[in-house]
């Protein structure tokens, strides 16, 4: 009997050991490693996407989840020490101002402007931020204008980052290449296409931001910019330019939606929407003509005036103006330009052994067939697709996290590094009231 109790004591001892050691299962973590790259000083070169622009504005919440900031957070595990951004202060957290959803009425979004806690020091001038930064994203920055010093006086987001003496005298290329970086991300060129496309492929006279950049200019500037960033064998990641038809800005307001709206509001059985094409000739719109998102709220359709008694957009004599439409020929031309730009980007990336994040391919996959990320449906639908913010061009926090993962994947592949991925399900899509 004594022996039995002795054994029981032994069993209890063994049991408690098993219990204590195996109570919580342990899974081995990812062995992080920088691979062949040096991430100690990472800079992000780019436009609004790099800056964290969203919902039609640059504001603190968006800045904090800009994809380079999410990448930098992961890079901390492989040697990055300090990634600073030109954050707006808490008092000026709404930055440039932005739009938010005020209500959904019968499935139709009503937007409102956020106008408090803005960061303007004067009209068209934002509060300066001239301390050292690593997120160098400038909303509206174009490749063709990155070599133009006067652009610092024209673009308020760039002006904000420059000491007064540098405004109008320093180019973006100079600004971005004097940071002593060890690693860079470079996503520029989108606006060289978008600036023109978002204006219905109309170049406004005297407005350099609506120009469609020539392929030769693109190649020359891209090459010299990358040359400057890669001196001393420095490494980086570049990204391709998305297809214009992959973003809700161009795919939400369709011919069918316009016709349905006319029918719903007037009871008229309308067959056609008339548009002014890029060549100036009016014709009935087809499903391959893309209307820009702001046309939805412009309130023009069906309007008549004393000068033109025909209903706007519903009669060949009063067609939808060209600036609101990318007609099918313009779509084809812009897609061809994007393709040319992307092949330049890919060639230079390969030449310089840079990592390549193929945002063009990725966003096309988001558009069709769409992706399911950890149980969340992600697609290019306006508002409900979870990837694009309320301006239909820029990303939601969740979209930023997915793009950060695309970049991380590309870096890991190119430099045999092991940077852990971002848990994108932590980040939101569009906010609902």
């Amino acid at each position, binding site marked *: 009997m004594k022996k039995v109790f002795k054994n029981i004591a032994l069993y209890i001892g063994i049991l408690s050991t098993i219990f204590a050691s195996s109570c919580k299962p*342990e899974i081995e973590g990812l062995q992080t490693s920088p691979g062949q790259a040096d991430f100690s000083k990472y800079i992000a070169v780019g436009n609004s996407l790099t800056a964290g622009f969203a919902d039609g504005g640059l504001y603190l919440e968006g800045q904090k989840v800009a994809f380079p900031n999410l990448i930098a957070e992961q890079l901390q595990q492989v040697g990055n020490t300090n990634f600073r951004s030109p954050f707006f202060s808490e008092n000026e957290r709404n930055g440039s101002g932005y739009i938010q959803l005020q209500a959904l009425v019968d499935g139709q979004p009503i937007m409102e402007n956020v106008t408090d806690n803005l960061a303007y020091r004067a009209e068209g001038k934002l509060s300066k931020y001239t301390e050292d930064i690593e997120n160098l994203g400038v909303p509206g920055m174009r490749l063709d204008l990155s070599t133009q010093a006067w652009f610092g006086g024209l673009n308020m987001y760039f002006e904000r980052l420059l000491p007064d003496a540098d405004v109008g005298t320093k180019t973006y290329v100079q600004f971005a290449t004097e940071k002593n970086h060890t690693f860079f991300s470079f996503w520029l060129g989108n606006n060289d296409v978008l600036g023109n496309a978002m204006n219905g492929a109309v170049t406004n006279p005297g407005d350099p931001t609506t120009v469609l950049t020539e392929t030769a200019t693109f190649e020359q500037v891209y090459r010299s910019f990358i040359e400057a960033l890669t001196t001393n064998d420095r490494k980086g990641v570049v990204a391709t330019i998305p297809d214009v038809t992959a973003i809700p800005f161009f795919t939400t307001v369709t011919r069918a939606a316009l016709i349905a709206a006319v029918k719903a509001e007037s009871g008229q059985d309308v067959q056609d929407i008339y548009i002014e094409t890029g060549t100036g000739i009016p014709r009935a719109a087809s499903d391959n003509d893309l209307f820009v998102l702001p046309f939805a709220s412009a309130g023009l359709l069906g309007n008549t005036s004393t000068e033109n008694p025909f209903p706007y957009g519903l009669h060949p004599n009063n067609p939808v103006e060209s600036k609101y439409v990318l007609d099918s020929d313009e779509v084809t031309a812009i897609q061809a330009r994007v393709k040319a730009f992307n092949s330049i980007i890919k060639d230079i990336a390969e030449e310089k052994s840079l990592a390549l994040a193929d945002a063009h391919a990725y966003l096309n996959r988001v558009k069709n067939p769409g992706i399911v990320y950890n149980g969340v449906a992600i697609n290019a639908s306006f508002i409900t697709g979870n990837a694009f913010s309320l301006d239909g061009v820029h990303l939601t926090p969740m979209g930023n996290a997915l793009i950060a993962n695309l970049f991380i994947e590309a870096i890991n592949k190119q430099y045999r590094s092991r940077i852990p991925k971002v848990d994108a399900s932590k980040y939101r899509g569009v906010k609902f*009231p």
Partner: protein
Amino acid sequence: MQIKRLILGLLLASPAAVWAQGSQVNTQSQKAVGMAGAGSALFVDETSIFYNPGAVAKMDHNAVSIGASAVMYRAAFREFNSNDVHHTKFKISPPFSAFATFGPQNSWWKAGLGIYTPFGGSVDWGDQWPGRYELNHLQMRAIYIQPTLSFKLTENFGIGGGFVYNVGMVDLSRSIPTASADGTPGRAELSGVGTGMGFNVGVHYNLEDDFAISLSYRSQVITKLKDGDAQFTVPPALAASFPNTTFDAELPLPSSFNVGVTFPAGERVDIAADATFIGYSVYRELVFDYKDNTPVLEDTKQIKNYENAFSVKTGLNVEASEKLDLRAGVGYVYTPVRGPYVSPETPDNNRIMGSVGFTYDINDRWDLTGAYVFQHLLERTVTSANTGLSGAYKTNIHAPGISLTYKW
């Protein structure tokens, strides 16, 4: 006429719901638990109502027993290419069982009643892990109520059967990807009670007191859940799209066929071994039928495609003294869940089991049985076909338990 605004036809994806068996840990008899689940041929007592109704008539007495376990289900998840390991919250789920036999002494028949919980579990990942849009928490329990009759056809051959009535309860929640003004996601909470019916039959044959064999079959029990509660917490602008409503669902609990043998390995030592074939392939899909559908809230169908599963268990029973029996056992369970259909509600995989247990005869009337089983589910890296969630799961289950028997 002026067309001011366009109808954009906003569509969100329906929240698909989950409801699985939970992680099965059989705890109906603490004696069997002490042998990792083996012993259907060895133990002829009131718990045979569950393990083999054919053995009940062989009891030379009547008995009532109650037992309970504290199942601690600890799972961990690491998303593919991530460094963050997420653990389920510490939860104890208490499966219980109660058995009673009735009948004349030394007769050719016996009746019995069993109330037990063959399926169930509790897993709580919280709302801060990468799979939050698939599952926050799931609590599920199937309670089987089984009146039973057992007959001795000869001294050595018993046959018996019982009718099974199941009351199943489920309670689960998950996040919905609809951010509110402060950025927090929405939430769906589903709960309900369902019922189903089935049966349990078995034959038990023994040669003297030495060798015995047990064959038993428990039918599948299709549990129908009607008018469960579906509650949605979403931003006000989306409330009309996610009405609080009710839902119907159907869950087939699988059949199982069990073969057990036992034989002596010494004066005071018995060996028992059991093999169980579990008909999980009935679980093809899970359909949720919401009463009020909206363009957003549609009925959902989730593919499960379970396979049949198999388990083997063996154990030793040592009569350490007049009053004390000691036990130990090991077992292996093949999972019914294929890789792409592994989900956080039961991140299942093949599992190994080890157990120890004892029965202490307090006196002629009272027995106290205790057991402890540890199950380790092997690490499994999967990509979910339903949600795309990709990563590695690993699970440990601890289940200490105790039961008290009164005999007359």
